[in-house]
């Protein structure tokens, strides 16, 4: 695939403020052993993209630590590979605040590359997407830009006002892109995944800035609906964009359903940082029901309807229900947890009882001792 990937790691940080307090959207831990960026990177690599620029802004230590040299995604390469693009600014500049400004910071990276196309994607979503197929469609339609959208019910989309909605003609050509339209029912929600020629992207960025524009959606896409051949591609498989702690919790637990798991993991390999954890050890008193358990855990208590990350310890007599315990959570004996999201390395001492409800899980931040 003659394309490079551009991944925006911070763009949606404000959606899940609890989890992004000390990390980027891309480095939010997900599903026992992944970080959100794993899905974007794996999709790019599985589509045949061999060069990826990772655009960062703030709090990106955890992200750097996770992706390292890119080895685990086969992106540690002499030619291409993973390029981390930290904020690029002059002394008097502040950090970028929009996607377009972020892109401007990547202009040298774009200029130095020789791939013909660019695939842009965010880190807030979990899906399996084959960009190679979308690119083929893009070429067949002689498109300038292809936007990927999903059909969603307007009521299910939080903060629909800030989202872009696309309208298309029968041939897939985008006829209108709007923010906050008065819509009900099914909408075509833009996923912030798009494909276009690298040189076109460079031109669009330069033109926008020469006119004092700074918003990629409003100023580049909306203004060019008629002057460019913008097409839309519907992504039909599983797709979720995480936009709150509740949606993080709800969508995570959906993976306890085999059909959802198979949607992602039976189709492709999802790569992540290798940790060399030992196998998970179940004790004689372990009781586990309907749960996903990563490697390196020691389970001596009860776990139900939960997602347990690597290196978690569940003590004797402890009961964990409907919860997400991130890497390194240690629970003592006879603890009771219900509807808890525990961030990394939380310690919960003996006999503590914490209970929230499924519609509003309780979040315990990193390194807290309860």
């Amino acid at each position, binding site marked *: 695939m003659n394309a490079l990937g551009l991944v925006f790691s911070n763009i949606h940080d404000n959606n899940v403020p609890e989890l992004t307090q000390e990390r980027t959207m891309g480095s939010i831990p997900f*599903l026992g052993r992944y970080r959100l960026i794993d899905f974007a990177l794996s999709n790019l690599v599985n589509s045949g993209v061999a060069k990826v620029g990772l655009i960062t802004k703030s709090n990106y230590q955890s992200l750097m630590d996770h992706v390292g040299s890119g080895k685990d995604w086969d992106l540690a390469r002499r030619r291409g590979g993973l390029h981390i693009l930290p904020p690029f600014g002059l002394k008097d500049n502040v950090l970028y605040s929009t996607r377009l400004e972020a892109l401007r910071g990547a202009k040298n990276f774009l200029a130095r590359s020789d791939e013909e196309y660019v695939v842009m994607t965010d880190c807030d979503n979990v899906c399996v997407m084959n960009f190679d197929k979308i690119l083929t469609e893009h070429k067949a339609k002689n498109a300038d830009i292809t936007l990927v959208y999903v059909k969603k019910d307007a009521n299910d989309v939080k903060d629909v006002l800030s989202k872009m909605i696309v309208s298309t003609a029968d041939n897939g050509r985008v006829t209108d892109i709007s923010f906050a339209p008065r819509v009900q029912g099914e909408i075509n929600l833009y996923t912030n995944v798009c494909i276009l020629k690298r040189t076109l992207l460079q031109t669009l960025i330069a033109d926008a800035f020469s006119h004092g524009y700074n918003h990629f959606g409003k100023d580049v896409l909306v203004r060019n609906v008629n002057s460019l051949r913008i097409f839309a591609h519907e992504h039909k498989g599983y797709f979720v964009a995480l936009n709150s702690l509740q949606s993080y919790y709800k969508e995570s637990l959906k993976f306890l359903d085999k059909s959802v*798991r198979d949607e992602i993991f039976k189709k492709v390999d999802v790569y992540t940082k290798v940790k060399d954890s030992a*196998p998970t050890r179940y004790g004689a008193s372990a009781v586990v029901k*309907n749960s996903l358990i*990563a490697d390196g855990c020691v389970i001596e208590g009860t776990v139900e309807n939960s997602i347990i990350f690597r290196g978690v310890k569940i003590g004797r007599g402890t009961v964990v229900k409907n919860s997400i315990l991130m890497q390194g959570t240690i629970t003592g004996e006879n603890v009771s947890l219900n509807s808890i999201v525990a961030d990394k390395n939380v310690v919960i001492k003996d006999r503590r009882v914490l209970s929230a409800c499924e519609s509003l899980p309780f979040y315990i931040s990193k390194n807290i001792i309860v």
Partner: protein
Amino acid sequence: MIYKKKCMAMLLAGGQGSRLYALTSKIAKPAVSFGGKYRIIDFPLSNCVNSGIDTVGVLTQYQPLLLNEYIGNGQPWDLDRNFGGVHILSPYQAKEGSEWFKGTANAIYQNLYFIKRYNPEHVLILSGDHIYKMDYSKMLQRHIETNADCTIAALKVPMSEASRFGILNVNENGEIYEFEEKPKKPKSDLASMGIYIFKAEKLYKYLEEDEKLEGSRNDFGGDVLPRMLSLGEKMMSYEFSGYWKDVGTISSLYDANMDLLGDTPNFQVDEKSWIIRSRNPIAPPHYVSDKARVVNSAIVSGCEIAGTVENSVLSHHVEIEEGAIVKNSILFAGVKICKNAVVENAIIAEYAVVEEGATVGAITDDKKITVLGGGYTVKKGSKIEAGEIVEGTL
């Protein structure tokens, strides 16, 4: 720039492992799966890296394909280095002809040119079929402090079992004065672990001499070490006291896997200070359904469990369907146990399938272990008797 290594390791991984039967029909013993997540060779390789040894030659001979692929460039063990790292050494054709490795000593002899490239002061000889965690740097330190020509790692074994091992008779300083290979009446319970550190110069000298000796089997334990002792070289023992298991037989491989289980396992692989590294599978966390029952077991990512699993070790991507029962067993990667099948006291190799209602093995008083080779399919409703060993197709 002239390079020099203080110590490098040579890992003997050519063994056929004929006593592992169906498990080693197509793969070399060091590549046999262990503990769900590992292969046997991960232990000596991880020990090397954790001990600060960054140059390892792996001598392969028997069915090396999978082993070569597994080791690859050594990246999982941080052994992809500019100078050093892990190297696979297979028998090769030289000007004087080509030869398979005869004994352990001959295998090293044939690769002396490789060792000399690194110009080491000391050479550590390891074997690829033991499960243990050992800090070789401590042994090296003792070897240097005592100015030994050769140091042999040794382990106290029960006197009743001593006659199965090479026994070292040592004086109070740990200096060896006698070797006894599998003695009928052992004088000591100190057994050789097959781990040696040589001064490089001595190793070169004795291997070159041994090669010229008529009647030598070119074996370290049988020929080279006794000869060194008889010629007055300083031979020291280094006593090791941790967990160590030769997994050369079905029952010892089985026992070593079982040692990973229990609330305080006999052998712990989750020690933060001594991580055992391996080539990790690409798989999501394992899933345990609400019909499942999992106790006292070790499970790895990618498994889907809906049946009963007791006292067992499951490697990645194992599938246990509803109503199936797995007890006291070891299942390698990708094994599938279908509905209502029963597996007891068995070792089932990669991608074997036990179809619906079939039975494999049984719990017997004499603890017979049933073995299924890789890729074998046990047909619906059929039975594999306890203690049977079935060749696989992979």
